[in-house]
């Protein structure tokens, strides 16, 4: 009847409920790495991976969250979780938070089940581990610093370059002719090299990730569904269509919506650049293009998306429940979101003032931010889209395979 004592016990950090083993001796909650029969595979896990394995062993005995996303159905295909399984499932997790707030074993329960946090920690490790060249994977660890340095370098490069090219940061209005400041071929060479490197680095990383466990042949149906999952952010709908959690157990669709603004804004900007490239090489139409031209319209719409999306995500990220995801990765998340925002902002300001004497400075600043993005693409938050898409393809292949387990019913 000592309810006060119970409340005290229940609210103490460890829960402190007495846990006993078969002979009545107190035992601690299932410690990391001990839940899976201690097989040899388990000893190869990092501490963060072992924590995922421990948690999934609990989840697999519960399964209440099966309807939220793909992680839990993928879990039911397994009895044990090796390194490849854990890396795959960590990247399948969208960090929506639904399972955390629904979890009867979440802190302050002794079992300390926090799927999104454990997954986020492993996710960062997979980016590091699969990075190419591998030593650069370390950039993920202090990613806020890496992004800042890249930004500083990008800005310095183009500002200095502008001065070197034109002798001054101010100039007579040039009617928006960027190439009067930075010659077209110079820009193509600089960005082309960096972009190609980013593609190569991310490509090598994701191929390594893919080969860690191949669930089966890539069928058209699996690829189509995976693409749909990516393009609609299917697994940010919570399974019930009400969305993710952010600051508490209430659902919100705004994380998904702001992500859509960001993603499609980025894609529109990419499309603008692609169209402009076609104009240049295919038709010989040189920039600057009209405000009503396709590249400018696409770029402007994309730019607006890239203002709204990142601003919203930034705001939500700051309000995120502290147990969601890995707080240590916040600089990486916010650095990336901030960079996208500034690329868009500087791009739109440049567009507005391209006919003035400030064009050179504005152009240098904009190109500097874009260069920073390109430089950090293979070693920052951008990678999540690549790895998650690959994980979703794995899941869409896997779920079409026959289930090898016949567990009967609980």
């Amino acid at each position, binding site marked *: *009847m000592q*309810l*006060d004592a*119970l*409340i005290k*016990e*229940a*609210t103490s950090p460890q*829960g402190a*409920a*007495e*846990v*006993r*083993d*078969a*002979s*009545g001796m107190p*035992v601690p*909650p*299932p410690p990391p790495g*001990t*839940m*899976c*029969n*201690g097989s040899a595979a388990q000893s190869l896990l990092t501490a963060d991976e072992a924590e995922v394995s421990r948690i999934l*062993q*609990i989840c*697999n*005995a*519960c*399964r*209440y*969250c*099966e*309807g*939220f996303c793909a992680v839990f*159905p993928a879990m*039911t295909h397994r*009895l044990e979780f090796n390194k490849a399984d854990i890396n795959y499932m960590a990247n399948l997790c969208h960090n929506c938070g*639904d*399972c955390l*707030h*629904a979890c*009867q*074993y979440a802190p*302050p*329960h*002794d*079992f300390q089940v926090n799927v999104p946090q454990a997954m986020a920690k492993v996710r960062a490790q997979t980016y590091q581990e699969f990075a190419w060249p591998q030593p650069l994977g370390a950039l993920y660890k202090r990613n806020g610093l890496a992004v800042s340095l890249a930004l500083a370098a990008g800005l310095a490069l183009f500002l200095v370059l502008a001065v070197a090219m034109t002798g001054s940061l101010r100039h007579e209005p040039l009617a928006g002719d960027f190439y009067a400041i930075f010659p077209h071929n110079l820009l193509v060479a600089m960005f082309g090299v960096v972009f190609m490197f980013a593609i190569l680095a991310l490509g090598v990383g994701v191929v390594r990730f893919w080969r860690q466990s191949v669930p089966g042949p890539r069928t058209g149906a699996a690829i189509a569904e995976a693409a749909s999952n990516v393009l609609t952010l299917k697994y940010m709908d919570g*399974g*019930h269509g*009400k969305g993710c959690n952010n600051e508490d*157990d*209430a659902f919100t669709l705004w994380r998904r919506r702001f992500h859509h603004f960001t993603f499609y804004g980025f894609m529109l900007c990419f499309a603008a650049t692609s169209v402009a490239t076609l104009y240049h090489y295919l038709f010989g139409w040189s920039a600057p293009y009209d405000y009503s031209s396709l590249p400018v319209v696409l770029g402007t719409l994309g730019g607006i998306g890239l203002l709204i999306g990142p601003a919203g995500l930034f705001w939500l990220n700051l309000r995120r429940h502290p147990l969601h995801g890995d707080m240590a990765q916040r600089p990486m998340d916010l650095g990336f979101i901030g960079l996208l925002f500034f690329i868009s902002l500087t791009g739109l300001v440049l567009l507005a003032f391209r006919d003035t004497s400030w064009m050179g400075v504005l152009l240098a600043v904009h190109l500097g931010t874009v260069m920073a993005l390109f430089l950090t693409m293979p070693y920052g938050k951008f990678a999540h889209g690549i790895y998650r898409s690959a994980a979703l393809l794995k899941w869409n292949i896997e779920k079409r395979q026959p289930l090898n*387990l*016949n*567990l*009967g*019913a*609980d």
Partner: protein
Amino acid sequence: MHKGAGEKHGAKHPLLENIVSQAPTYDVLVIGGGNAALCAALTAREAGASVLMLEAAPKEWRGGNSMHTRNLRCMHDEPQDVLVDAYPEEEYWQDLLKVTGGITNEKLARMVIRETATCRGWMRKHGVNFQNPLSGALHVARTNAFFMGGGKALVNAYFRSAEALGVQVRYEAPVDEIELDNGRFVAARLRNGERIEARSCVLAAGGFESNREWLREAWGQNERGEWPADNFLIRGTRFNQGVLLRYMMSAGADIIGDPSQSHCVAIDARAPLYDGGICTRIDCVSLGVVVNREARRFYDEGEDFWPKRYAIWGRLVAMQPGQLAWSIIDAKAVGRFMPPVFPGTQADTLEELARKIEVDVPTFVKTVTDFNQACVAGDFDHTALDNCHTQGLDIEKTHWARPIDTGPFYAYPLRPGITFTYLGLKVNEHAVVHFGGKPSSNLFVAGEMMAGNVLGKGYTAGVGMSIGTAFGRIAGDRAASAAKGEFKHLQGEQRHAA
């Protein structure tokens, strides 16, 4: 500052006018924070009452045992979203009749059953999401609607809805006493001495299964001199101390149900003392043998499917020395049962396994060897009542009997885990608390505190939530009426009609 609808009702009840109270007076006071309490609070608020909820637990532990639930047993005459086929009223009633062995009340039971046919729309409105049956639970796809994310997600949704509707919620507010005036609710007295008045009250504070002293007393001492309940685990919340149940009993409320009975399941002995919930189940019992601390078998492990037998095994294990048993399987069983949360004790030989689990090695080996030799070859099928059985043992295994001969061998320790208790307050169809056969005019009860009216014995998946939802809503509705002074009239009408 309280701004509930109750302010509109004006002056306090005349009888209370002389009592000085600083606290605001509410129409309806709901004591408890689980499914039944929330259903009562939401329904009363929807009926226009101002509502205060008092939850004993801190916010992070709110919801009582509801946070460990996962589904609702639902009557339906045709397929309904997540429910396949049909589960008509009569079949539901027969199932209930069977599991309770007739210790039920047909009128109240049928009320609950009918309510489950229609309550899900209301549940959805308050934010509850349903999902298709979980893998491993497909056998109840027809009868049970699963909550997406389980009971804690349901509890969260209800609390959000309650707060949005203006229900006041106080956590860490355990109630010790109820002030009664000749069977009429007057006020609740909190642990801290605070006195809270209301025009009516719903008690929905759970059973007494977390009260270890009470369990000890109820189970008593066995012939070995042990107090079996000392070795029980509590599958759910630590906050169901039965304080109000005991208070109401001493205040002369009519009770129902056997105080010595509880729903008792065999679970993993390594589960935490409280809140182990669903994941501490051990589902391999029917695939092997179970031995006690003396390394002897004590019951037919293959009598029926495990979901139909785990409740029997709780009691069986409670009767063994030390209230401990071991489920023993070999490598052939791995991958054929729901994965357990804790790893089994593993050994390559039976002797090694016996040493590791600290039972007498020769006895253990003889028990398993005798069993192996008695196994009659058949067509093993763990998804059906197959023909693999033993012949010639004192305690036969009637299905799924296969020699335990292929290493590695595994042992999982079992202990009794208490889910809930059956003792409750006697009610009528209005969920009214009775004193000496006379219904109170404004005191109602819902959930585990009265589930024994419908479920006097046994259990079937999802029926606790059915009772909690149905009677929670009835209690909330009647409590709102009572607060408006309409309830007696309603009762009079019903009597007249009868």
